[in-house]
């Protein structure tokens, strides 16, 4: 029997079984052939297209859309993959409303951009569905590269290097490859095992070995890798989670949003996941929204996002905020957590303090409110954990909490490159990680081939 929304505490199975699959189905359902043709006809084939400039991987968007419109989806897919081998995932998870679609001239013209993301998905689905591999490996160069982290950055780097003829070994601490594609992205953005299917598609080129359950700093070191390989790429993402610095945060039932999401993503049966009746998520980014929305979709009655600044400062895009609202999540602005209230070790609520922006600083007003809660998720940001780099000496410089790199992704340590969330450039997005991984691969290639 479904527990329903009104059972107190943290329980599994709040919903009836069919509700889970309905709730977690595709957020943006795929375009069918007719829809894709109608939509592709809207593209103006702009010169030096603004959408393309807004894409971190610079996909030739007008060209691939024109290819779709002329009945050539395979050509379209290749145009996409040429720039972004994770074009399938990016089509699903990119916040297009702040990237290509925001820049689309039809957004300027009539507030309705061409649906670039969904068209991209259409084309990549056709190619991946047909198992079509577009790239052949160049002749073996005899060089080998080790990649730490099988997330978007690592995978993009691996594919490009393999294409150029290098042997690639990818090492990842987690049991499955994919990084946050597998463990982080909201379930309704990438349903039906797409993340693993994409990893298989990428490694289908050959020459890439992925070794899971291998953690840098525990099982191997950067200097060790450099003994066996000609170059190393670090795409380790952000392993740490920022603390709330609120009293009582160590209480039982105060969890990291990313851990909750990872558990959810790995669950074979969503009805087995326990969720509170009243949930508070602290934070204002994509992780906060994803945690809050998925809590609602699992049957939580009341879900509140508590964010310490105003709407416009939220890292979650307007689209994401609207999504949260449409799923019944309440977003409270200008409040920061002071205390997690507990009774007998169980969370009962969160005491929040109102904030305001004065003299250029955010500060508490002293006034408080209490929101009842039996589960709290922390989503105030992830951070880079530099410890595993230890043993490499001081050679890999960290700046502003992330690995310092130059324009080509080179770290301060010779033969070591880095990209993705673990470096301090670009936005923390899948597509930026892909761009950095790919570009680092080109730089590595240049260095190895001379």
């Amino acid at each position, binding site marked *: 029997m479904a527990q329903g929304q009104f059972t107190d505490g943290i329980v599994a199975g709040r919903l009836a079984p069919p509700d889970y699959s309905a709730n977690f189905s595709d957020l943006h359902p795929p375009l069918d052939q007719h829809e894709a043709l*109608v939509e592709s006809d809207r593209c103006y084939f702009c010169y*030096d297209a603004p959408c393309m400039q807004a894409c971190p991987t610079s996909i030739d968007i007008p060209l691939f859309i024109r290819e779709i419109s002329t009945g050539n989806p395979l050509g379209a897919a290749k145009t996409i993959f040429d720039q972004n081998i994770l074009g399938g995932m990016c089509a699903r998870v990119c916040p297009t409303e702040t990237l290509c679609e925001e820049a689309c001239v039809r957004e300027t013209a009539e507030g309705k951009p061409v649906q670039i993301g969904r068209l991209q998905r259409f084309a990549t689905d056709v190619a991946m569905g047909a198992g079509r591999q577009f790239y052949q490996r160049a002749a073996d160069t005899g060089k080998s590269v080790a990649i730490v982290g099988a997330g978007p950055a690592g995978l993009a780097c691996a594919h490009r290097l393999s294409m150029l003829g290098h042997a690639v070994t990818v090492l990842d601490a987690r049991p499955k490859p994919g990084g946050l594609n597998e463990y982080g992205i909201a379930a309704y953005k990438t349903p039906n095992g797409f993340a693993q299917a994409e990893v298989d598609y990428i490694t289908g080129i050959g020459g890439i070995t992925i070794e899971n359950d291998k953690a840098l700093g525990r099982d191997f070191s950067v200097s060790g890798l450099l003994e066996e390989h000609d170059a190393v790429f670090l795409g380790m993402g952000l392993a740490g989670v920022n603390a709330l610095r609120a009293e009582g945060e160590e209480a039982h039932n105060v969890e990291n949003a990313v851990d909750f999401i990872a558990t959810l993503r790995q669950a074979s049966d969503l009805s087995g996941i326990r969720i509170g009746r009243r949930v508070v998520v602290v934070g204002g980014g994509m992780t906060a929204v994803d945690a809050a929305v998925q809590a609602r979709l699992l049957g939580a009655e009341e879900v509140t996002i508590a964010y310490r600044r105003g709407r416009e400062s939220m890292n979650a895009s307007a689209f994401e905020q609207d999504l949260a609202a449409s799923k019944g999540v309440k977003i409270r602005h200008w409040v920061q957590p002071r205390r997690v209230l507990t009774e007998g070790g169980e969370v009962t609520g969160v005491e929040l303090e109102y904030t305001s922006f004065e003299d250029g600083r955010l500060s508490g007003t002293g006034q408080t409110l209490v929101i009842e809660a039996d589960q709290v998720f922390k989503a105030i940001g992830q951070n880079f954990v530099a410890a595993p780099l230890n043993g490499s000496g001081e050679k890999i410089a960290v700046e502003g909490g992330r690995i310092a790199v130059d324009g080509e992704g080179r770290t301060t340590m010779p033969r070591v490159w880095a990209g993705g969330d673990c470096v301090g450039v670009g936005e923390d997005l899948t597509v930026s990680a892909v761009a950095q991984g790919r570009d680092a691969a080109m730089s590595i290639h240049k260095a190895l081939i001379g």
Partner: protein
Amino acid sequence: MADIRSDFLGIKSPNPFWLASAPPTDKAYNVVRAFQAGWGGVVWKTLGEEGPPVVNVNGPRYGAIWGADRRLLGLNNIELITDRQLQVNLQEMKQVKRDWPDRAIIASIMVPCEEHAWKAILPLVEETEVDGIELNFGCPHGMSERGMGSAVGQVPEYIEMVARWCKQYTRMPVIVKLTPNITDIRYPARAAKRGGADAVSLINTISSIVSVDLDDFAPQPTIDGKGSHGGYCGPAVKPIALNMVAEIARDPETRGLPISGIGGVTTWRDAAEFMALGAGNVQVCTAAMTYGFKIVQEMITGLSNWMDSKGHQRLEDFIGRATPNVTDWQYLNLNYVTKAHIDQDLCIKCGRCHIACEDTSHQAITNMLDGVRHFEVIEEECVGCNLCVNVCPVQDCITMERLAPGDLDRRTGKVVEPTYANWTTHPNNPMHREAPVQVPEPAE
């Protein structure tokens, strides 16, 4: 309220919108629906000789080309004239005319090019009391192989001869429908006039292959692996038809000959353009076949509102008003200088104007200004060709602005002359004359 009642050769109809002879006018059922929808008149689907009617193919008869969003731009057909018994058609025509006395009904006829054949059919048609006849000399496929349709329309002598027979054997007004599948439309029009025809109508369809099936390697529509050329019509043919209408309207030999304008008429605006060039009314086929009969409502209100806004009270107030402004290239004023101008508030920065001008024209539009995406006309380079206006997706965003006499044309470094000067006097013209030849005024 403008009066849009039409009088064409004395044939009255509540508006100038007729359906052309084609499937929409194939039988009473369609025609009655058309009249219910508001059409002013119809030219009944072409009648053939008495006896067993022609047969149509039993596979696809149409092919098309499309614009964005699969808007039909051009239609191709391999249909023949009516495939129903002559008597059935005549009975229905008579009944419908009786039921709808205020609407125009014209009988379209195509019989062999022999006097007895025309002499035989005309009294039968006359007996139906329809308003007139249209001689189908236009159909480019199927019938022409049998020595009818465009096979006749391509030989001016035959046109003249058949028109003369018709004038001789009937008192009904005679309209000759012209085929565009000739090099100079004035010849068949002149022949029709010489034969005594009361009017010409044009155009019929243009010989065409609309597409090729790349799996079967056959023209489309494909019938059992083969295809044949068909007749092309719809919005795509409008420019060709407009030109032909203008050619006849301004030809000294045919000037004043009434014209029924046909070819791609889809909106009230298309109709007004045909009429401005000299057509007394218009006929429509493809637009009705694409959208159904209701489109006539848009045509009626559109034409009437436009006339009101311009102060035209009756159709005659604007019919033929554009004809005197159609001239030959050599008479165009070379001292008329324009430059493109981009309205920055309307510009959505798609860059199409830039790349069109940059790659294929005169390198006269920027794409950057101070490192920012910005499209602006470089007057020093702009020849005023209008390409950018045509490729810009935003209406009225790029306009052509005339340089006033006395202004400096920054491309040529010359001051714009206030006078009219054309190619006939241009020094580069090996046959140039001293004084400009003015456009010949049409005789009234």
